């Protein structure tokens, strides 16, 4: 047992040296010679901002149901079925049909080739569920339908979030999906996330609509506040153009009155509609509405056929820049809420790295001295293995380009303390064997063999606990919630 073949010794030596080399690539640049993998520093060490955003899907669902009521009405009108008393209540659509039509309507909804209710064969589910409550028919999104809706609004939202964050120009932002209604934004090196937060907090739904005095407008009207909260105005629900029609938006200085404005250009459809509206609406006030608030409501003086215009509204240069950015990046499908934020300044990060390194050095030194005092020569051997162990640990982290955080450093220091365990188990067993065994070699052999099961059991239990710790840290246990 205690025989180590030359091959094995050579292999272990090369293996150890390889990891020393890999681990040290964190300190030197090996770009061209070897490889350029490095351990990443977590946000708590390099400084930066972690934002967890949640998409508020309720307005999206409401909007979809609203659209659906129209679709249903038109769809069945073509089939000569009258839909009565259609209304939306708590994410359900209710309506009545004549009793003789009931079955047919339900059949249409539950048909796998239904034109009005998409079927997802992979999940064996329709988008919508229909139920006869006795009083009326009830339609609501199925579980799968809701999931699809959420993922699609998440897909759209993450795209817009990416655009907005990119425009702010932070280095290497990390934007990821979490679940089906959350988005994680990591912004390394960002000291003050205020600007990003305010940019992400806006839906940026822009519409141009006429101000009206007439409550009986064909499209309906609503009372909206001005951005500064001083005035209100009655605005038609008819949308002339919306943010989707914008090709570009830029902050500009209006040289005539020294005001900061946002100038925009429209796409062809938008330009056409804007031209038509401005030609028929001369003298009327055109409200520019962003997220339910009126930015300004200038009076139309001329027909604007060029498809270019400008928004003024008492902007500072910063607020004009931000508005232009929001308009360029497009509107979010639903409002976002920041449900978790963690920001660490770069100097605290550096302090944490320093403290961690000092603690690691001192912890390491203490353990090494202790082992030497306790075991002398064997202690020296242990210390060599301890150093190799540390290099292999750092090497593996480097290979996987793992992210090192402050708790991670604590874990490494703890490892130094616990890693001597196997050595101690063997040494102590050898000591015991030496009590009744005069032959050193046999005692050594006995020490190795007999301590093996204890070492395996001890390490597996630690490993199991570590796996749980890892899953928990990676947020993988949430499936069990």
């Amino acid at each position: 047992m205690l025989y180590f073949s030359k091959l094995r010794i050579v292999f272990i030596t090369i293996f150890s040296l390889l990891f020393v080399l890999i681990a040290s690539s964190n300190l030197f640049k090996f770009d061209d010679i070897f490889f350029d993998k490095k351990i990443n520093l977590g946000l708590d060490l390099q400084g930066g901002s972690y934002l967890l955003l949640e998409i508020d899907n309720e307005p999206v669902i409401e909007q979809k149901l609203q659209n659906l009521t129209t679709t249903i009405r038109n769809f069945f009108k073509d089939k000569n079925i009258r839909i009565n008393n259609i209304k939306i209540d708590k994410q359900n659509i209710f309506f009545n049909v004549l009793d003789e039509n009931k079955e047919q309507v339900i059949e249409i909804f539950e048909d796998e080739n239904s034109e009005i209710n998409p079927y997802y064969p992979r999940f064996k589910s329709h988008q919508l569920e229909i139920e006869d409550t006795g009083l009326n028919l009830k339609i609501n999104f199925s579980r799968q339908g809701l999931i699809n809706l959420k993922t699609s609004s998440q897909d759209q939202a993450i795209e817009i979030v990416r655009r907005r964050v990119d425009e702010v120009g932070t280095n290497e932002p990390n934007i990821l999906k979490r679940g089906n209604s959350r988005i994680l934004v990591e912004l390394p090196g960002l000291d003050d996330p205020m600007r990003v937060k305010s940019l992400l907090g806006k839906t940026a739904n822009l519409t141009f609509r006429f101000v009206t005095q007439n409550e009986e407008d064909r499209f309906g009207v609503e009372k909206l506040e001005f951005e500064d909260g001083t005035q209100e105005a009655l605005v038609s629900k008819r949308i002339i153009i919306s943010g989707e029609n914008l090709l570009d938006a830029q902050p500009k200085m209006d040289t005539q009155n020294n005001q900061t404005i946002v100038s925009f250009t429209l796409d062809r459809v938008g330009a056409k509609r804007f031209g038509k509206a401005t030609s028929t609406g001369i003298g009327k006030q055109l409200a520019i509405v962003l997220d339910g608030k009126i930015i300004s409501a200038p009076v139309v003086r001329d027909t604007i056929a060029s498809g270019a215009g400008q928004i003024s509204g008492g902007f500072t240069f910063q607020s004009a820049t931000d508005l232009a950015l929001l308009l360029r990046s497009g509107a979010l499908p639903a409002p976002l809420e920041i449900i978790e934020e963690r920001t660490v300044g770069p100097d605290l990060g550096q302090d944490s790295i320093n403290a961690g390194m000092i603690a690691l050095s001192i912890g390491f030194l203490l353990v090494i001295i202790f082992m030497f005092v306790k075991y002398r020569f064997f202690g020296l051997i242990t210390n060599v293995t301890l150093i190799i162990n540390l290099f292999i640990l750092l090497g593996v982290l480097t290979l996987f380009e793992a992210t090192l955080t402050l708790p991670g450093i604590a874990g490494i220091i703890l490892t130094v303390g616990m890693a001597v365990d196997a050595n101690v188990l063997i040494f102590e067993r050898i000591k015991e064997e030496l009590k009744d065994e005069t032959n050193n070699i046999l005692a050594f052999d006995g020490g190795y063999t007999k301590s093996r099961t204890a070492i395996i059991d001890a390490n597996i239990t630690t490993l199991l606990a570590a796996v749980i710790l890892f899953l928990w840290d990676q947020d993988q246990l949430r499936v069990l919630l």
Partner: protein
Amino acid sequence: MIAFNKYYNHFNFLSSALIIISLLLLIFKGLNFGIDFKGGTLIELRSNDTKINVSSLRDKFSQMNLGDVSVKKFGSDNDFLIKFENKDNKKNIIEEIKVNLDKSFGNSYDFRRVENVGPKVSAELLKSGVIAISLSLAIMLIYIWVRFEWQFSLGAILALFHDVIVTLGVFSLFSLEINLSIIAAVLTIVGYSMNDTVVIFDRVRENLRKYSDIKIFELTNISINETLSRTIITSATTLLALLAIYFFGGEILKGFSLAMILGVVFGTYSSIYIANTVLVRLRVSQKTVLREDDNK
């Protein structure tokens, strides 16, 4: 040889008392949850002006209508930790605070760290923490069951349970803050304590096979003594590493390292005085392990 077995009864009484006291503390006093689990806002502030101190900060913050605000020194004299619940979950709270503080202190201060955890997230974090700890206990139970006999499994899990409950009890007694890093510490304690127990159990089993005429009462004592120097040395090196983290690793790691230090101490104690006494009380004998061998 130290006669550990002479005190089995005394220490069993002590352990039971510790567990009961800890449970009572946990039920009636509860834990001091940090913002990770309670939701709220935390600001770590560094000042470079002696005008800024705990009382002037407390003054300023109490004028801001934030509800209960706790202001504490954090490590050094010019670092402060400010915590409040942020009940209304106001969006631009940090910016508002900055504007307010700027008025009184100018730019003689700096936010080094800001954390804001919404109520939904904190509830989820708490749940997943509890799940992680329960899951790790369950997995340990199963592993020991597979590797040893059920009596061993029960002993090990009781020891683990003791370590986790008493560590949390100490945190409750001194109102120390429970945050994410404490959950990490508890999970690590589970691993460590198990590791320690398993080494002694392994020796107990070995000795059970070797000696048919020694009663378990005596046998556990022999096994504890045989593994004692290993137990002491591994605990010592682990504690050395932990003390290094506690004293030099910075303010943020203090809670984690303290919990771990407690866990290592309790874990070492429980391996000797809980895990083993369970074997004694369940009258484990050579038959127990031989039957297991037959089954394999």
